């Protein structure tokens, strides 16, 4: 490592961050301490270093004191390292002759004792100054950003993001991958949406067709992303198209094959209807499915299962689109950015045996009730009991699986509102008496409280009491042959037993079951409840720790449709800003080898998962392909002679920091 060219003239700027730091750390004392450090020629305190005046302060100080290195002691580098590097370079200093010391998240917010906090801040600044003294000027490398975008998940979030991206992008392709045979996600299952009660398919189907016909969107339906490699601007993605046993280009959706199928009656549970309605082995998930193409379920089709069938479907198909030997095929493509919109899974009500789901008759989850209420559902929009009668009394139980430390501790945010909507629709369609059992009626959105107001005026019976159990053990004559809901009406102060005909469980929202695999494939992290983790809850809600990958919708946490669409738009705009800038800055933290010291022992080559290190036969030394190197530094730590080192994290820098913190 070559010694620093000119003598270090370091400026240290300690931020109060309002009271966030000042409240715990004695900033003036820290400034005095910093001023006395070797190499420091200027030290000062300011209320908000990240603000414009704060940034100007640095520029002015660089001029006035001829600073050639800068240390800012404030918040976490993940927040403002880029901001201050830009300020420092605008002041004429190489942006990598700058070091940020975290005395907010690292000190003031996590320490009670003021004296110890100040002492900790001082020792971190001491380390920061020693480090910046030895830092070398570097240039950030820029990489072109491939304009194509991959969107994972074809629900409302994925569709909206794809459309926003496709409309803005001249010529660039949006690859929308949807695991189910049709896009539409969970929203396609709904009848109406709160609070405006406009019909889900009326606002969803136009978007679905728009996605189908949009020239810039390539829809990969009934497909899954299998692998993602590379980095921001240059992702290599492999997608597997699961076999529909139908040639998608030929099938026009005339559905004649379904009538011709050897199975005369539909006997297999239809996943889209959550098994409530039946379908044939060859089917279309729901009428407005996009793409409007059939598919064959290999577990149900006689030929695919047992290999013997008259294959009447093939004869019926004028387009000869049926191909029973179809195999899964994989396609690889390059994209610059990725939007993850994989949505949620409803809480499995079987995990709450006290409510008798799957045991007692006429106990349904909210999603099943949505299908009952939907005109394309099993009962064409009118919820019926198992014996075909209309229910006279219905109980809707809130917080099933949510706000319960035994299952999910978080509140799923949308169940109160959709329960009110279900109550309205059930009353409208069956005239039944509806009871809603809630802990807190949460109506936070625009027009939400007014919707609750409307339900109350419609005579909805609301009981503030979390239901303990649903049982069919009747104690009075009136309770016979009813489901008895047992709850304490906490406002009235009495424990009540309310006999009803039907129970609807307002199940909460959970992460998809394969979130862990998705997370590993994309190098993302998850929160404790299992939802994908955003970079920062307030400042970067749709970005992730991995540059170039954005998340939108329920995969990031329970939310309603307005918020989901808003996030989808945000994710699209974040991707667009990268695409339009056309290049992306890669941190110059790559490995660098000192050829006078490299003995060609090849230990480092095996360390690199990106094959960024090669062996030069003549010179008998190794060399680093900077473009491939991601800057992890594993090879530098393994190098037996210290010949290999990592820029900006050189041995000397780390050793200096160690000396500083002790």
């Amino acid at each position, binding site marked *: 490592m070559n010694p620093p060219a000119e003598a270090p003239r370091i400026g240290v700027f300690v931020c109060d961050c309002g009271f966030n730091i000042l409240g715990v750390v004695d900033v003036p004392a820290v400034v005095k301490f910093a001023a006395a450090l070797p190499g420091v020629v200027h030290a000062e305190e300011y209320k908000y270093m990240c603000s414009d005046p704060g940034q100007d302060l640095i520029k002015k100080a660089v001029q006035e004191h001829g600073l050639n290195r800068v240390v800012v002691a404030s918040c976490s580098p993940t927040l403002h390292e880029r901001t201050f590097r830009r300020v420092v370079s605008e002041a004429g200093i190489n942006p990598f002759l700058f070091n940020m010391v975290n005395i907010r998240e690292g000190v003031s917010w996590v320490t009670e004792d003021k004296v110890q906090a100040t002492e900790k801040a001082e020792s971190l600044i001491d380390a920061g100054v020693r480090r910046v003294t030895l830092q070398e000027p570097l240039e950030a490398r820029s990489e072109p950003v491939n304009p194509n975008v991959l969107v994972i998940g074809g629900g409302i979030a994925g569709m909206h993001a794809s459309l926003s991206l496709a409309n803005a992008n001249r010529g660039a392709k949006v690859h929308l991958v949807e695991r189910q045979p049709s896009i539409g996600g969970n929203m396609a299952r709904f009848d109406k949406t709160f609070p405006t009660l406009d019909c889900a398919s009326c606002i969803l189907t136009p978007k679905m067709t728009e996605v189908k016909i949009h020239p810039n969107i390539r829809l990969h339906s009934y497909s899954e992303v299998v692998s993602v490699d590379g980095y921001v601007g240059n992702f290599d993605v492999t997608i597997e198209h699961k076999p529909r046993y139908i040639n998608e280009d030929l099938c026009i959706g005339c559905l004649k094959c379904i009538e011709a199928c050897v199975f005369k009656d539909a006997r297999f549970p239809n996943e889209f209807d959550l098994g409530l309605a039946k379908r044939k082995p060859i089917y279309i998930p729901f009428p407005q499915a996009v793409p409007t193409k059939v598919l064959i379920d290999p577990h149900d089709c006689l030929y695919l299962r047992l290999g013997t069938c008259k294959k009447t479907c093939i004869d019926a198909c004028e387009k000869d689109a049926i191909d029973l030997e179809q195999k899964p095929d994989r396609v690889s493509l390059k994209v610059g950015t990725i939007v993850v919109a994989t949505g949620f899974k409803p809480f499995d009500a079987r995990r709450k045996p*006290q409510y008798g789901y799957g045991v007692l008759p006429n106990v349904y989850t909210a999603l099943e009730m949505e299908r009952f209420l939907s005109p394309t559902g099993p009962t064409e929009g009118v919820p019926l009991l198992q014996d075909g009668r209309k229910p006279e009394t219905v109980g809707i139980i809130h*917080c099933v699986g949510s*706000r*319960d*430390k*035994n299952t999910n501790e978080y509140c799923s945010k949308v169940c109160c509102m959709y329960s009110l909507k279900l109550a309205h629709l059930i009353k409208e369609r069956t005239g039944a008496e509806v009871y809603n059992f809630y*802990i807190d009626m949460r109506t936070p959105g625009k027009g939400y409280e007014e919707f609750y107001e409307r339900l109350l005026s419609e005579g909805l019976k609301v009981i*503030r*009491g*979390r*239901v*303990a*159990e649903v049982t069919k053990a009747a104690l009075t004559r009136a309770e016979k042959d009813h489901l008895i809901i*047992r*709850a*304490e*009406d*906490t406002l009235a*102060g009495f*424990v009540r037993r309310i006999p009803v005909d039907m129970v609807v469980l307002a199940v909460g929202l959970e992460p998809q079951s394969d979130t862990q695999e998705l997370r590993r494939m994309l190098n993302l992290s998850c929160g404790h409840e299992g939802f994908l983790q955003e970079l920062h809850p307030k400042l970067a809600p749709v970005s992730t720790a991995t540059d170039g990958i954005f998340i939108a919708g329920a995969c990031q946490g329970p939310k309603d449709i307005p918020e989901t669409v808003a996030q989808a738009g945000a994710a699209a705009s974040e991707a667009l800003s990268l695409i339009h800038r056309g290049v992306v800055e890669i941190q110059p933290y790559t490995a660098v080898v000192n050829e006078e010291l490299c003995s060609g022992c090849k230990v480092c080559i095996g360390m690199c998962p990106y094959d960024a290190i090669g062996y030069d036969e003549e010179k008998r030394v190794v060399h680093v392909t900077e473009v491939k190197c991601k800057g992890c530094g594993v090879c530098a730590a393994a190098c037996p002679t210290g010949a290999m080192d990592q820029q900006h994290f050189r041995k000397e820098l780390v050793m200096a920091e160690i000396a500083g913190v002790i």
Partner: protein
Amino acid sequence: MQVVRTVKYEEELDAGFTNQVASEPGGDAIWNCLQCGTCSAICPVSIYMDKTPRRIIGLIRGGFRDEVLGSLSIWICTSCYACTVECPQQIRITDIMYIAKRMAMKESQYQRFVVPAVEEAFVKMVRKNGRLTESRMGIKVVRKSGLRSGVAMFPIAWRLMRKHRMSLLHVERMQDPASLRAVLDALEPRHAPTAPAAAPSRAAGA
């Protein structure tokens, strides 16, 4: 109908009462209660209680010491732990009922009620013999809850005796009850933390 003042001024309440309960084993999560009512709903005997379990927890958090220790609820609780298992905030409500019972026992605040008396008799007998004899216990219960109930108990006792499932003569005793007493006496009676300068306690709530 007698008009009774139901509002409580803060100084009438015992601010330290909640932490007293929270400091006992099992009482630690009491601050997390959502007042959702699951405990009252699942409790098999909440409909017989003067204050439902939810209300008891609410009262403890409010510092209503006399209302809680003077309530019937804590004595009717059969400790079947249904509330503890169902509580979404994982508060051990059954343990809190026990804590309240112990406080009530220590400060003999409880109203003249059969259950505490029976339990005190149980403890005395077990301390003496190291084990319980059902027949002797039955007699004590009858003595405590009045002769009338004794009349109803007599046929049952008689039929059990004929079936050799109960006897007035045999006393179930350990070989060496003293070894049990050695253990118990080594534990100096840890009476539940008595209330600091207990607020002047009015007549127990309605």
